[in-house]
Every structure is written in structure tokens, then in C-alpha cells.
């Protein structure tokens, strides 16, 4: 199958997910288990993307203070928890990565 066709399928699917509740509001009742599950979807999927980026180097676990990405991640998580500011989280994370990479070199 061509890349374009797969891309369009993915795009239609994604648009459908984004439109789902907006279009169905007031018309469809969703089952309880579904409404319970839904709030966990962003946290579960995004954390599954974040954790390997911080803890794996070339597919191998790297738990060490020399792992600059892990250190920058910890700083970013702390800033996000304390300030809830997107800007400071991003700036603090990038700055820590740059400083830490420089320090341990």
C-alpha cells in the first residue's frame, strides 16, 4: 500500500477521534467504563513516549547521573510540577541538558 494512502487513512482516523465527542455531544450516551478510562488516555500514552526518551540510550537502560537527558527530564518534571508553566519547563529542560552535557564531557 502506498505511503500516501496509509497517511490519509491515519489522518481521517485522527480527525475522526478529534471530532468524535464534539459531533456526538448530546446525542450519544457513553458507557461508564469508557468515561472512567478516558481521563487516563493522555497520561498513559504521553508517559509511554517520555520515559524511554529519558532512560534509554541506544535501547539500553542508562540509570546514571551522567545521563544528561535523565537529569534534564527530572529538572523539567520538577519545574512543571512546581510552576505548571510550559515555558519554564521547556527552558529549564533544554538549559539543564546543555549545561549537564557540557559539565560531564
Amino acid at each position, binding site marked *: 500500500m502506498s505511503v500516501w494512502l496509509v497517511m490519509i487513512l491515519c489522518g481521517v482516523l485522527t480527525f475522526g*477521534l478529534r471530532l468524535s465527542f464534539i459531533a456526538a455531544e448530546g446525542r450519544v450516551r457513553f458507557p461508564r467504563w469508557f468515561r472512567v478510562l478516558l481521563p487516563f488516555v493522555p497520561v498513559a500514552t504521553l508517559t509511554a513516549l517520555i520515559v524511554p526518551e529519558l532512560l534509554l540510550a541506544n*535501547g539500553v537502560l542508562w540509570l546514571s547521573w551522567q545521563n544528561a537527558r535523565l537529569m534534564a527530564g527530572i529538572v523539567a518534571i520538577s519545574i512543571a510540577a512546581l510552576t505548571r508553566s510550559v515555558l519554564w519547563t521547556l527552558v529549564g529542560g533544554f538549559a539543564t541538558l546543555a549545561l549537564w552535557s557540557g559539565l560531564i564531557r
Partner: protein
Amino acid sequence: MSRSATQEFWAGVRALAPLLVGVAPFGMIYGVLALANGLTPAAALAMSSILFAGSAQFLFCQLVGVGAPATVIVAEVGLLNLRHALYSAALAPRLTHLPRRWKLVLAYLLTDEAFAAISQREADGQPAGPDRHWFYLGAGLALWGGWQLSTAVGVLLGARLPSDWPLDFALPLTFIAIVVPLIRDRAMVLAAVVAGGVALLAVGLPFKLGLLAAALAGMAAGWWAVDKAR
């Protein structure tokens, strides 16, 4: 007094602006990654409009690069983007009064970043006037423009971007900025810990299926915690 449509629109743009610090490198590295995995520049650019979802575009390129079957690609992108159904559910009650064309446009523009900006709008204490949807449009369009521009820069510069710039770190950082404020109770902590743990354990699975397993395990853990507490 509630804000006018113009004020709401620009408030939306301003609420989204800080996220562009992460979106710009994220978009550039996507452009580089797309070409490196064999996509044509036209396909790489079109995907930013057709899919318009950074993490899913990353995943799509990586799966094309390893020759994953079409069914696997569609299933994984679908699961990864399932969270947009939550954003849709959260936004839906505020859009009921709008004409269909507004609903279609705002649904298309509904991303992690736009949702994060919208959540801030809900918390900022400003009265919710009849023109609040202009805020959503402002935030959505600001992200759309920033994403198209930065992915285009990535596609144009391609391999000429210095490879020692850690642009890819924008992906986990942006998601940290979005996820951490969402974690407010123990069930959320459990969902995050389980998803992260399974993501590490299952990293060896082919076609990035570990991501799928981790996301499902995290959702199940959260659901279990809520069910047990009831």
C-alpha cells in the same frame, strides 16, 4: 465584562505561544526524520496538514522506516491519537451552540498543545463569554502555523541541521510540560508509573508495539485504581 471575539482570538494565540519553544525544534527534527526514513519532501510536508499530530508523525516515519505493515501503522497511530477523543469530550459541551463548520474546524485544530492552552483558559478566571470559541481558534491556528513553518524548515534544511543539536529532546520536554499538570491524584500517578514501566520493559518489541502495550497498561492501571476506590 466578557472579552470580545478579537480579544479572545489573541488571548488564544498568546496562551499557545510558550509552547512554540518546544514545537519549533520538534517540527524541525520531524522534517529531518521524515526524509531520513525515505519519505519524499512533498509527503513529509503534506503529513503535517493531513495528520497534524507531532508524535504520531514521528511514529509514522519510524514505522515506515522499518517497513511495518500498513495495518500496524494505522492501528498504532490510532491508539497513540486516542487521547484526542478525551480532548474532544472535554471541549464538546462548550461547542454545542456553534454551527457545524466551527465544530469541524475546531476538531481539526484539536491537539495536545491547543488543549493545554485551552485548559489554561478554563483556569484563568476570565468570564466565559459567548465568543470563547475564538480563543480556541486563536490557539489552534497559532499551533498550526508554527507546526507547518517548523516542519518546513526541517524538510528544507534536512541533513544540514547540525547533528549535535539535541532537537529531538523537544519531544519528551513538550510532553512533560503537558502531562505533569494532568497528574493530580494517585490513580493518575499509577497510570503514569505503569505506562512508563511497561514502555521500558517492552522496548524490544518489533514495530514499536511496546508503546501500544505501555499505553494500554497505563490506562488499565488507572481504570483499576478508580474501580477499586469506588
